[in-house]
């Protein structure tokens, strides 16, 4: 009997936590499918007043002002993937050096790397704002790519370093003994083996750039240059000019890819986000 009782208690616990998790998600769902809203919601509802897909379709056409969804989506993809690519490509060699070689100043270097990896993105915003302005590229996509690459790079390096480090040194030595040069060994042996770690680092930095909107917003000033996520911020900033159902739809559309990736890679992502601090 007590066993049944405790099982029922466990079920109730699960349901309560589930409700807590789902409540705000439900809130945004009902908001985004409510066709009756013309600006901010004015009353509390469990279900949409007039269920409709219209806000969704509107967002998929022109999310804000008269900018097309396709343009924003393209901006998002270009900026996030280029920033990720830049962070990965520029970071790989440093990650490899930290993983494989002992050189003077290695330890302070690692500490510095870790410190920069846990800095909040805003900590890079003021200097980048001025520096990109000085270079005259603050409002371009190239500038935004640099901003997001700067946010992502320390974390990527830290992660890829862990990837390279987990490859047995013997494998490289074997290739080396077979007459392969340092670079060929890296290209043919280490890089392919470290690909999973590199992919995870890439996913995380892509998602960061893809879903970031307030800091990027500081740098942009043309409405057709912003990313999809920044359109969310644009709608918030415009007050109640646009139906909040569209805000909700846009937020959902932006989060769906992130959610899919997280559900799929949950265990790998968990391990990576622990900064490799698990004792093995």
């Amino acid at each position: 009997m007590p066993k049944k009782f405790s099982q029922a208690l466990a079920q109730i616990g699960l349901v309560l936590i589930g409700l807590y998790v789902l409540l705000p998600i439900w809130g945004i769902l009902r908001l985004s499918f409510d066709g009756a809203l013309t600006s901010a919601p004015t009353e509390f509802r469990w279900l949409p007043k007039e269920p409709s897909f219209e806000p969704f379709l509107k967002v998929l056409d022109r999310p804000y002002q008269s900018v097309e969804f396709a343009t924003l989506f393209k901006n998002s993809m270009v900026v996030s993937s280029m920033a990720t690519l830049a962070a990965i490509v520029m970071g790989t060699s440093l990650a490899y050096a930290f993983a494989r070689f002992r050189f003077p100043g290695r330890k302070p270097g690692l500490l510095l790397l870790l410190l920069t990896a846990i800095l909040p993105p805003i900590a890079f915003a003021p200097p980048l704002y001025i520096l990109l302005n000085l270079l005259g590229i603050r409002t371009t996509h190239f500038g935004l790519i640099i901003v997001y690459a700067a946010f992502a790079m320390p974390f990527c390096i830290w992660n890829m370093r862990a990837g390279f480090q987990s490859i047995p040194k013997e494998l490289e030595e074997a290739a080396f003994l077979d007459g392969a040069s340092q670079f060929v060994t890296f290209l043919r042996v280490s890089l392919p083996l470290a690909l999973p770690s590199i992919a995870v680092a890439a996913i995380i930095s892509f998602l960061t750039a893809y879903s970031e909107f307030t800091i990027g917003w500081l740098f942009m000033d043309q409405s057709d240059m912003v990313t999809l996520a920044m359109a969310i911020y644009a709608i918030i900033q415009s007050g109640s000019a646009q139906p909040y159902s569209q805000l909700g739809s846009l937020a959902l559309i932006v989060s769906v890819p992130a959610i899919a990736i997280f559900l799929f890679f949950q265990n790998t992502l968990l391990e990576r986000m622990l900064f490799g601090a698990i004792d093995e």
Partner: protein
Amino acid sequence: MQTTTTNPNVKRANLPIWEPLAKLSSSVPEAWNEEGFIFRLDGLIFVFAMFGLAETWRKNRFIFIWFAVDILILLAWQTKWAQYILVATVPLSFIAAEGIKVTGRSIADWWQTRNRLRKDAVKSSTKETRQALPWLVPGLLFFFILTIVPIVYQFAMSTTTLNGTSLRDGLQGGIMREVLGGVNGQIAIPPEDAELDRSKVHFVGLWNYPETVNFLSEVEMIFFSYFWTITSVALQVVLGIGAGLLLWRTGGRMRKLWQAIFILPWAIPEAVGALLWLNILCAVQRLAGIGGEKYGAEIPFGGMMGWEKDPNKVLIVMLMAALWYGFPFIMLAVSAGLKMIPRDVFDAAAIDGADSWQTFRYVTWPMLQPLVLPAVLVRAIFAFNQFYLFQMFLPYYQNISMTTLSSFSYYVLYGGREFAFSATINIISLVLLSGFVLLLYRRNKTAEDAVYA
């Protein structure tokens, strides 16, 4: 507690429950008494006291209890005037003394092990350094350009008066002119009351720092950052472990489903998550104006009506959202850890007659620790840096005493265009974060050394 005061000022002051802790951890603001104190070390004493708590509990329980009772009374007492904290300063000082001893001992320990390790450590060889060079040079170059240059430049900005008015001058090379001139000694730091040309950038040396630190501690923001980190992560740990254990007991297909639901908040981008909670809470807020009287407190979260005016309720709201974000991460770490514990261990505990609390305390928890502690540390860093949540909610409750350094830095930059101020705050939070780095690195070192073993 109604009878603690009849003074209407108490209500008007609207001080939060944790106000005594904030006052205990900071010095008397300079404006209150300019000449009364020769030095102001209260913050430092409080920090040492935090280090000394555990040792005091072990060695001198009387002082620990004395302190705990004082704190409980201070927290429960409705009147939050600053001078009341004096009841707790004596035990605090005793504990801080213990903390200084503990700190000294651990520094000595660290030094000894360091020296011992240094003797055994494999020296970095010239051969390897030469091999490393072709990898180091391009990588360092990029790292330098993308990461180090902005930080160094930010430090340079923090030694000037750059703001919206002088931005034009700053962009025309004013920052470098002033900083280089200042470092060379060609430009003197202007006295505090000097009339400066506001359209130009000026070098002020490191004077932004004491000013900013004073400001941040007087509005209790530094205290709040740590207070927030501790309370929000503590809640996340409790719910995360709870949910992890519940899932583990459920088993089967249902488990997968529940787990997929529970990790949703982790997967949703933080900014969108803040939006979700804002949507829920603002529905309540708007109701207060429109339909509040009709529905009263019966609607969900109805008791939270008017939360934005009461700091205690603001904290509850923020914690509710932060708990939502954060617990799935801990839960996943717990789940991963539980999978690695062999079943026999629990059978053995059951045979020995351990009840469920004992099993958790002496069997489950020690085995979970290696996975959960790093997760807690990572969540603590997230909480300390928590940005979007405050950035979205601050316009509603408008109380800068309750925000993190990073979101305040954004407001200073975006709202006030105070570039130098924002840069100074960022450098200060960089310094505060380095404590977390040491903790993370220490956990990482075991794995690190193993590679070279």
